[in-house]
């Protein structure tokens, strides 16, 4: 059914369709509407779940950790400072191989305190062992949440999945979203959770034991391999979803107008909408330009990126994050992927833009396209700074 839904409502409804059994959360802007909607669904009996509103994000993640270890389906959501407070637990969830799904309403981190959108929060947890998917719009966010449970709970993956959605830009925006009418179809797509190891009085295993130097590395290696393997699961989950519900946004990446493209813009999340509009315009004026969308940031889709970019001349990486002391993050990883595959004909320029909710305009993008053709190896340069505050 097509409905005009606020992004948070679309996400909450996608989560509802996946039928999580235990939900725990702590309020933080811009995540609040998502958990408000979910708690209302539980209050109204539209979702049969235990909803635990806790005293901190650390406990929200810990509650879903404990519940997930019992073998039930779990969900939480947060943003920015809340995510940083949870980070310790996210490492733990991933290390214990628990298939928790969470939404990250991407927001700038403090200080200065700022509630608006960028992706610095997500970048802070990129090495936790959680799978990180990024939604471009609310329809994809709705669908991606259902896929996330399928990916997390795969027997050979068993890792938390974090679905990134841009705070406010997506969470608080009303768009037309096509929701799924049949819960039975979703159940067919997403079978009941079935964990091999869980806290169960009939099979009383011990979880979270001490991993001494003799075994710690192997444990991390197995997690590393599961993350690698999850690439296949993410693609399969997207394809299966297409077969059942008709919608598809690519597997690990997606491309837009990439045939013969000499200039390629790479980005994640909602900014892709603006970028695609600019590309349409530039294509109309005869420019050979295309877009590479990163849908899965972790696992990092190296092969797909290399295949998409190897014939390009100029690559522009649009990043709403910064690595102080280095520069870009996504741009560095892309350059490294190309280098590893001995491709040295592509000029990769990374720009930091839109931090703390600053608008990214079509003009910004067009300027970068022009600049990138004249510059080489730009690494995380700040775009659109106000000289009066420097």
């Amino acid at each position, binding site marked *: 059914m097509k409905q005009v839904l606020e992004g948070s409502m679309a996400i909450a409804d996608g989560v509802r369709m996946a039928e999580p059994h235990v939900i725990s959360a702590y309020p933080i802007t811009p995540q609040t509407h998502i958990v408000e909607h979910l708690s209302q669904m539980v209050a109204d009996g539209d979702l049969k779940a235990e909803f635990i509103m806790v005293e901190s994000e650390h406990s929200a993640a810990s509650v879903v950790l404990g519940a997930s270890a019992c073998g039930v389906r779990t969900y939480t959501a947060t943003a920015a400072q809340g995510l940083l407070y949870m980070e310790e637990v996210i490492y733990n969830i991933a290390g214990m*191989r628990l298939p928790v799904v969470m939404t990250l309403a991407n927001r700038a981190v403090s200080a200065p305190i700022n509630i608006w959108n960028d992706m610095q929060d997500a970048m802070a947890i990129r090495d936790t062992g959680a799978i990180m998917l990024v939604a471009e719009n609310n329809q994809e966010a709705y669908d991606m949440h259902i896929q996330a449970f399928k990916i997390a709970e795969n027997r050979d993956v068993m890792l938390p999945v974090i679905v990134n959605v841009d705070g406010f830009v997506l969470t608080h925006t009303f768009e037309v979203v096509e929701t799924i009418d049949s819960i039975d179809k979703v159940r067919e797509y997403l079978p009941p959770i079935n964990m091999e190891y869980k806290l169960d009085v009939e099979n009383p295993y*011990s979880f979270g034991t001490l991993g001494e130097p003799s075994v710690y590395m192997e444990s991390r290696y197995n997690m590393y391999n599961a993350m690698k393997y999850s690439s296949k699961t993410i693609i399969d989950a997207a394809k299966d979803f297409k077969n059942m519900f008709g919608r598809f946004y690519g597997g690990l990446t997606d491309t837009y107008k990439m045939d013969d493209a000499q200039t390629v813009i790479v980005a994640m999340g909602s900014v892709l909408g603006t970028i695609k509009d600019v590309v349409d315009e530039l294509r109309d004026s005869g420019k050979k330009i295309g877009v590479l969308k990163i849908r899965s940031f972790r696992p990092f889709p190296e092969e797909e990126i290399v295949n998409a970019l190897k014939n390009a001349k100029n690559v522009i990486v649009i990043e709403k994050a910064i690595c102080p002391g280095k520069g870009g993050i996504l741009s560095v990883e892309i350059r490294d992927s190309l280098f590893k595959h001995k491709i040295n004909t592509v000029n990769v320029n990374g720009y930091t833009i839109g931090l703390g909710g600053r608008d990214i305009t079509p003009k910004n993008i067009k300027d970068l396209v022009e600049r990138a053709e004249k510059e080489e190896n730009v690494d995380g340069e700040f775009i659109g700074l106000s000289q009066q505050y420097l």
Partner: protein
Amino acid sequence: MDFKVGIISMPGAALSNKTGSFANETPVFKHKACTGCNLCIYFCPEGVIYGDKKTKIYDFDPDYCKGCGICAEECPVDDIEMVLVEK
């Protein structure tokens, strides 16, 4: 041992660890004045003491006893004595 899904231990697997090697001293149950009060069983931090209230015959499991001496210290009738382990 499958730990692909995180480091998980099997129930009670610690029994493979014979902590008796920790002990410098070891209890000797004299079986003279014992009243069968069971305090030695209660107070043993390892749970290695066993026996019978009726027959008042108690003993310990040398495979796991760490030789702390609490049983001897707490025995109300001094019926347990600690002796040095020869190593």
